[in-house]
């Protein structure tokens, strides 16, 4: 039998209420494999509020505190303060929130938590829209993507704005550690989680979580799409420690963005010009990332 390439213990059980092929459940599974069980987690309104099952059931083997939509990061600061006051020294305080809950409504609390250097790991699972309420655009929705609030019509061409650069915002706070991780690369995912666990101070993980119903693709393609997202530079994999950047997956030549788009119904309407616009945005961001890495 081949050696397992990621830790075997499972801290997320079966029976959760995620859609078939949901990327975020793999994200949770790999996160907990990396962190182990000495964790207390807080989550706001998001897909996982439902995925984690209604009362009286729970699907995680670690404690989970529900909190209001905008407050994940503040809830983390409270948990950390209490853990320190109650002598729970080794517990890792974790926030697990969606892209809308982090980059839109929860951004202020996130900035506060990073600035006051709360010792915890904020994990944003990014399915690129408000999926729990049925696929409405968020700041993290990619340029051009269809959602129910960016419909396609004579006067509608999907999301008009580029995807909010959340890692850029986080980097501005000089986090102790921040990294992008992708469920299609579990080994890299778990390695970065373990690295984050070993560092004290405010840490941030940006998880790409492919979403079959939301991105309009057949559920079995979740992992393929995850790979394509990174290999087309739509979702580069990199780390930040303080102010130094390090890209953790570099291909000789990135695949064209169109390869990533064509599998997904949310991009089906895009004209060649619109695809070219998205390609230009992706190339510009990649160039900037290389430059940031070069600063060292």
């Amino acid at each position: 039998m081949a050696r397992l390439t990621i830790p075997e213990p499972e801290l997320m059980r079966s029976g959760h209420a995620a859609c078939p092929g949901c990327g975020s459940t793999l994200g949770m599974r790999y996160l907990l494999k990396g962190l182990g069980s000495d964790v207390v987690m807080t989550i706001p309104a998001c897909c996982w509020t439902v995925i984690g099952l209604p009362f009286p059931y729970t699907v995680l083997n670690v404690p989970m505190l529900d909190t209001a939509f905008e407050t994940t990061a503040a809830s983390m600061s409270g948990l950390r303060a209490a853990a320190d006051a109650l002598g729970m020294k080794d517990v890792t305080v974790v926030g697990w929130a969606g892209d809308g809950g982090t980059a839109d409504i929860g951004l202020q609390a996130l900035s506060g938590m990073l600035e006051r250097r709360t010792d915890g790991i904020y994990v944003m699972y990014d399915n690129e829209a408000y999926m729990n309420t049925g696929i409405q655009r968020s700041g993290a929705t990619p340029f051009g993507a269809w959602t129910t609030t960016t419909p396609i019509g004579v006067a509608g061409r999907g999301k008009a704005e580029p995807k909010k650069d959340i890692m850029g915002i986080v980097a501005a706070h000089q986090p102790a550690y921040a990294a992008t991780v992708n469920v299609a690369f579990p080994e890299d995912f778990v390695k970065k989680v373990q690295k984050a666990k070993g560092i004290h101070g405010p840490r941030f993980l940006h998880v790409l979580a492919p979403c079959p119903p939301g991105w309009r693709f057949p559920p079995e393609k979740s992992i393929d799409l995850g790979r394509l997202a990174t290999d087309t530079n739509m979702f580069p994999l990199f780390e930040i420690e303080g102010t130094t950047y390090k890209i953790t997956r570099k291909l000789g030549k990135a695949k064209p963005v169109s390869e990533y788009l064509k599998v997904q119904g949310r991009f089906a309407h895009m004209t060649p010009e619109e695809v070219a616009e998205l390609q230009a945005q992706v190339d510009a961001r990649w160039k900037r990332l290389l430059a940031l890495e070069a600063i060292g």
Partner: protein
Amino acid sequence: MPQVVISGNSAQAYAAKLARVQVVPAYPITPQTTIIEKIADFVASGEMKAQYVKVESEHSAMAAGISAAALGARVYTASSSQGLLLMHELLHWASGARTPIVMGVANRAVAPPLSIWTDHTDTISQRDTGWIQLYAESGQEVVDTVLVAFRVAEHPEILLPAMVAEDGFYLTHTVEPVDVPTQEQADRFLPPRKTSGLLTPGVAGRYGSYIGPDLHMEFRAKVAEAMARVPRIFAMAEEEYRRITKRDHGGPMPLYRCDDADAVLVTMGTATTTARSVVDAMRDKGEKVGLAKLRMFRPFPADQVRELASIVDRIGILDRSFTFGATGAAHTEIAATLYGSPHRPMLRDFIAGLGGRDITPQTVTHMFESLLNGRGPEIEWVGLKRRTEVIGYG
């Protein structure tokens, strides 16, 4: 007993220190700010071993307070006016999550017009959030009531958050002699909070899950039942506090010279002190008037109000807030409480002191005279100006 001359806000801070509070989410807002500043000094000087969480908004202050309390820590925070309103979503959350947070509220009017001066619009507007609400008249009452509030909030039969409100400037920034309990007395009265065990690292358990129509009502009923037990637990706590410090502040609605009164005025907060002196002055002139101090607004002391209605047939209510489209909140609650009572005193609602407008002895005397002669409208905005004399702010 060390008598010190301190402000109402300092009294809040002393009480938090004496209560050995473990987590203080702190965010400034006039006139509450000197509470969290004083606590910051206590922490910096080592007098207080609290985790001081410097949040970026009142909304985050309450969120951090709830999560800290859910993990088991004793939590104190403070706010006012706009900040309390920003917390509204989480005030509901705190009571639903049964987290026994105690919050000092420096009462302040609600904008617009923007005002940093006192009235009760902020705390009254939060009366439906499942928080115990107590109003203090003096620094002494503040320090004593915050300690009692922790004892009641953390009682296993209660587990509800509590607000201890004090009028902006008239109390928050008014220094006067206060008999601050010793740490030994506070420890005897208020043992450390045993961790709730709701969340234990490494142990599966989710706190706050969503629930369908099948069980949501049952959890809401539990909060209602807990609130209904507060009067009994509050009385026990005040009795034990009196045993230890020789002081108690008379329960939910203490009466003053009401036994043979022809008219009684119900007051909240610092207006009570002034009204008490007017009662004495009018009594000296043979006018039989009395005072009822409404200390506990939630849960509303219905028994005490019905008791009062059985001994006096003219009751005036000084509301330092107003519910648009209805009447002052205390008036509304008292009228509703008396609907089922055999006694039907005449009720008058006096709206006064909004936006920091001073409630002077003359204002109170007018209210009593209006009650005694029975003339005047059912709801009267006392001292409402016709000619506006805007004070220059030069």
